[in-house]
């Protein structure tokens, strides 16, 4: 094989590292599940054992397949598929951070204010710079959400300063 062809072969290598994340999670959960049912009577075990063992076998088949491909030099264990497009990583991480912050903060700040702040923050993180949009969208989602979910449907969303103030006012 010429060096040219070898280089080409290398650049053509598929990254399959990311493909293994779901199987590892799945097999991990299956093993944990089986561990939790070890002492149980047959009727509580049968389903979990069947599913867990089948799942682990499938994962084993995939691992064997990937190992064979790796031996043949067709694949590497890069995580490209999961991370691309790389330029989006910062905004994606901020968006994820905001999503997690939303569920952490909502019990204290309440539905309306949290929604307002979350939508505003996410729009900024995703690159929206129009002042009009940055004002209108968060306002609309917060007030629309309040009127529909809390005022009209009386759903028990977490209440914060705004909900308490409005409840007092009306």
């Amino acid at each position, binding site marked *: 094989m010429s060096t040219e062809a070898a280089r080409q072969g290398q650049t053509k290598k598929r990254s399959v590292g990311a493909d293994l994340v779901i199987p590892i999670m799945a097999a991990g959960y299956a093993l944990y599940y089986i561990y939790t049912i*070890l*002492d149980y*009577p047959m009727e509580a075990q049968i389903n979990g054992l069947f599913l867990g063992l089948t799942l682990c076998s499938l994962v084993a088949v995939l691992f064997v397949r990937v190992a064979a491909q790796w031996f043949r030099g067709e694949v590497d264990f890069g995580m490209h598929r999961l991370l691309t497009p790389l330029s989006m990583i910062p905004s994606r991480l901020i968006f994820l951070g905001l999503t997690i912050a939303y569920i952490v903060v909502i019990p204290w700040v309440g539905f309306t204010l949290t929604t307002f702040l979350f939508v505003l923050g996410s729009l900024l993180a995703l690159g929206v710079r129009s002042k009009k949009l940055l004002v209108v969208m968060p306002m609309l989602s917060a007030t629309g959400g309040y009127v529909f979910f809390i005022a009209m449907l009386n759903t*028990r969303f977490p209440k914060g300063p705004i909900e308490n103030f409005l409840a007092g006012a009306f």
Partner: protein
Amino acid sequence: MKDFTITPTRRSFLKGGAMAVGAGALSASPLSKAWAAFPERNISILIPTGEGGGADRDARMFATVWRKYLNNANFEYSYYPGAAGQVGYEFYAAKSEPDCYNLLFGNLGPEIIMQAMQKPKATLGKDFIYFCQTTDETMCIFVGKNSKITSIQQLVDEAKKRVVTVATSRLPHPASIGVLALGEATGAKFQLVPFGGGNPSAMAAITGEVDCCTLPITNAIQLDKEVLILTLFSKQNVFGEMADNAPPVNDVFGTKIPELSSSRGFAIHVKAMETYPDRFQIIEESVKKAALDPEYADLVEKAGMPRSFVRYGGREETVAFAQDMLALAEKYGSLLAPKKK
């Protein structure tokens, strides 16, 4: 890991019961003048079974009369079904505020047995206490209208020849205990099949998937001609024609199976009773008034259930019911637990 044996929870329970009665005596003295304003907001009722089930229906029905005696309060309902009621009780004990604004409306019979069998973290007597019952109904065995079996004697004879399948909503349930006790007393072989609720259990008997079904009697009475009631786990059949004139089980076989019934009623955090005795007093008194109001019995009758379904019981009576149920769970629990591998 979970094990399936029953540990005696009676002692702790009795202690809790005594404490509850004590707290009640304390609350009898007017501690505060502000209590007249209670409740200032909606009362939340947690139901440890699904929406649209019997407990949901009864809680709502009761509340329509109760609010008259409770400052015209409004009620909010939430449903926490799962693991024979365990999920609901644990949530009630751990996650809802013990301020007398949060109550639990449960099925006392099956859920007390569940507590004995499954040992949830939420402990009866320590974390919460049943303070009243609003309704009470006996358990029964019935078949679908197309069944060849027409009497309890015939069913038991059949079960001596082969294993007879019995639909039940869940294993930890007075109805299930009744069937197993009948099997033990007569030598009949029954296989309980849990269907997860009254409706699917009854359906299984009606469609012939199982030989018969065991449930609280109002389920069967409401199904009218679709089912034939074979026997009741009570001293007498006070329902007569409505319950197909079915004989009480002990009358037929001369057995001594205990009366098996299930009450529905309210539970409250022990801590709420202690912290807000004034609020609790209002709740307790207003529940009693509502349960004894003929308007409530009228509503029950209108919904197609017998008037005798309504049976108010105060704190002491409810505590006694719970004790009996725990004793039953201890006696028959081994029949419900799985055979170890």
